[in-house]
């Protein structure tokens, strides 16, 4: 009870409110993200006491991840890499004339994802962290390999094209210094290519620039003129909520699972939850058509991941992703060393952190729900003005990410590539999934091989073997299914 009063005071609540608002803004503007919000605000926490400082950072983190859905739905450009998959259904639902419903679903399930992650952190953090610590390079590789095989579920029509797109994503991600031996690959003597392409450049190019070019090509009357803003309650019925329970839990578990594995984060969680939910759904055909299934998969998972990333942070002292790495820095500045001892030495602070996360989630939910009308009104701005300004913000965001002009050149390259993909009807989702996962996959494969000396360990360690077998099995099954379907369609 005493912890409640530590957080429930005017100053802390104001800081949580401020953090939530700033976080949502950073999340909603393409190019800016939660990591930048937390990094930029970290110096402000130096003079605060530990509870206030950490509460502000956590509110920024949760707000940053939640805010990404706004632009993903309204502009079809993910505000933050963690909302990448929200575009596929949220953007489509908005395009179909229901932007308010899409936002309502996204905001509510973001909230549910947040609360799920926090509850898991409160109840089983040490156990989950111990489970995650059993993951060595073999298990990590197997998990990433399994995730890569899910490319087949992202095929929109021709499986061959989806696989080609995935291969292209892997190859583009290989540009730069290789893991383990630091060999330069495909850099052609260009120093800027040593670090490869930034994820933000790929995302902005594929979504924002492609969207601008597509709008220019098929010019239509300005704005979403048929938008009728009619939304009852949260945007969905109780029956729909009950119907989506399984989907929601699957997404939350994937998000949490990816979150507790250090070094991966919300981007991978979001896209993996989407493909997992699609491949296990009774109605996979609904995904990508503007259904609530896809929005739930994406938004529940990226927020459940937030709680997930906190688990290894507090229980093992290992940050789950880039944002929690900065939060770790914030904790250390205040003389707190996370790890197994933290439950004994700073148990109260862990409780305060969880309470602050819960309050931030509630504030974010109320703020976003209250502002839906305002968000939707953005669609009444003529597209010529809105998209031009968004393109400008995206370019600045890509530049500000590393202060490198090279990153904005990369935006153009990916923009042109994305536009070509759309025109040639090549699915872009497999490219993005492969681009995001390549580095993890190769690093853990090579680390495993260097550590154990042979590939046997990948097949003899139980967790690793299970993931690899399921991955190969599902890939073969989907290729066979696709082959059969294409044969039937030719003979029909």
């Amino acid at each position, binding site marked *: 009870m005493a912890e409640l009063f530590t957080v429930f005071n005017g100053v802390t609540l104001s800081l949580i409110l401020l953090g939530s608002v700033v976080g949502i803004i950073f999340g909603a503007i393409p190019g800016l993200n939660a990591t930048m919000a937390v990094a930029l605000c970290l110096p402000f926490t130096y003079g605060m006491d530990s509870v206030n400082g950490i509460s502000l950072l956590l509110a920024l983190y949760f707000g940053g991840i939640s805010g990404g859905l706004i632009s993903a739905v309204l502009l079809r450009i993910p505000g933050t890499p963690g909302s990448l998959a929200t575009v596929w259904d949220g953007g489509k639902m908005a395009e179909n004339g229901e932007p308010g419903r899409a936002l309502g679903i996204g905001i509510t399930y973001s909230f549910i994802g947040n609360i799920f992650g926090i509850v898991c952190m409160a109840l089983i953090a040490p156990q989950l962290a111990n489970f995650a610590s059993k993951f060595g390079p073999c298990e990590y590789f197997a998990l990433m390999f399994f995730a890569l095989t899910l490319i087949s579920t992202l095929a929109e029509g021709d499986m061959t*094209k989806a696989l080609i797109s995935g291969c292209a994503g892997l190859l583009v991600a290989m540009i730069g210094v290789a893991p383990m031996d630091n060999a330069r690959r495909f850099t052609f003597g260009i120093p800027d290519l040593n670090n490869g392409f930034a994820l933000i450049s790929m995302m902005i190019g594929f979504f924002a620039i492609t969207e601008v070019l597509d709008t220019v090509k098929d010019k239509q009357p300005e704005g979403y003129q048929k938008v009728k803003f009619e939304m009852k309650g949260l945007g969905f019925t109780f029956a729909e909520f009950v119907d989506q329970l399984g989907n929601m839990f699957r997404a939350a578990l994937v998000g949490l699972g990816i979150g507790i594995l250090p070094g991966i984060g919300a981007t991978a969680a979001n896209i993996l939850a989407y493909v997992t939910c699609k491949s296990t759904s009774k109605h996979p055909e609904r995904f990508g058509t503007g259904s609530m299934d896809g929005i739930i998969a994406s938004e529940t998972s990226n927020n459940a991941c937030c709680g997930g990333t906190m688990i290894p942070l507090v229980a093992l002292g290992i940050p789950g992703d880039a944002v929690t790495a900065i939060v770790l820095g914030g904790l250390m500045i205040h003389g707190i060393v996370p790890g197994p001892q933290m439950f004994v030495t700073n148990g109260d602070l862990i409780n305060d952190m969880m309470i602050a996360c819960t309050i931030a989630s509630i504030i974010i939910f109320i703020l976003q729900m209250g502002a839906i009308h305002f968000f939707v009104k953005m669609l009444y701005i003529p597209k010529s003005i809105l998209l031009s300004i968004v393109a400008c913000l995206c370019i600045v965001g890509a530049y500000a990410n590393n202060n490198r002009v090279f990153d904005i050149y990369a935006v153009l390259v990916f923009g042109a590539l994305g536009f070509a993909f759309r025109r040639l009807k090549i699915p872009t989702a497999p490219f993005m999934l492969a681009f995001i996962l390549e580095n993890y996959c190769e690093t853990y494969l090579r680390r495993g091989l260097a550590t154990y000396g042979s590939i046997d360990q990948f097949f003899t360690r139980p967790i690793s073997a299970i993931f690899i077998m399921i991955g190969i099995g599902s890939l073969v099954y989907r290729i066979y299914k696709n082959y059969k379907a294409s044969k039937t369609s030719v003979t029909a």
Partner: protein
Amino acid sequence: MQIEDKRDLITAVAFFLLGAVVIVASCNIPVKNVGGDIGSAFLPQMIAGIMTFLSIILFVKTIVRSRRREKIKKEDIVQEKSGAITKKQGFYGNKAVFVSFINLCVYVGLFKPLGFIISSILFLVLQMGIMTEDSKATPKKIVLWIVLSAITAIAVYLIFYEVFSMPLPMGILEDDE
């Protein structure tokens, strides 16, 4: 040959060539194996090999599909049209895409030398002009575009400079002292 087949053939040829280039370029990657490590060249070569193989499959599949279609000689061939468009106005199509892309390239190219504010104003005014509904640049509209562009560029610069302490390039507006 239907447009869908043409698209798939272009895709197959483009990715076949890309795969071949990657395989050749991978030969120059230095090999420094540690323990049982596979080296940095193995995976790109393997992935490029798979991609090349898939491209061949796509090529063959497309040719077979196209021939079957020709045999059947369906009369109701669905011609690719951008059917969803209800009303196109003004400047659109490939020309507009090309001009927009050039505008983006010029913006990115001038981002550092001219500075964020000036390059952004130029880009925004031109892009709003390209994207405007009827492509008619009336004096009233031009004034609106210039005002909006200037407000956006200056506001973004100030937010980055004052709030984030992250100055964007000033280019020719930079104070030499």
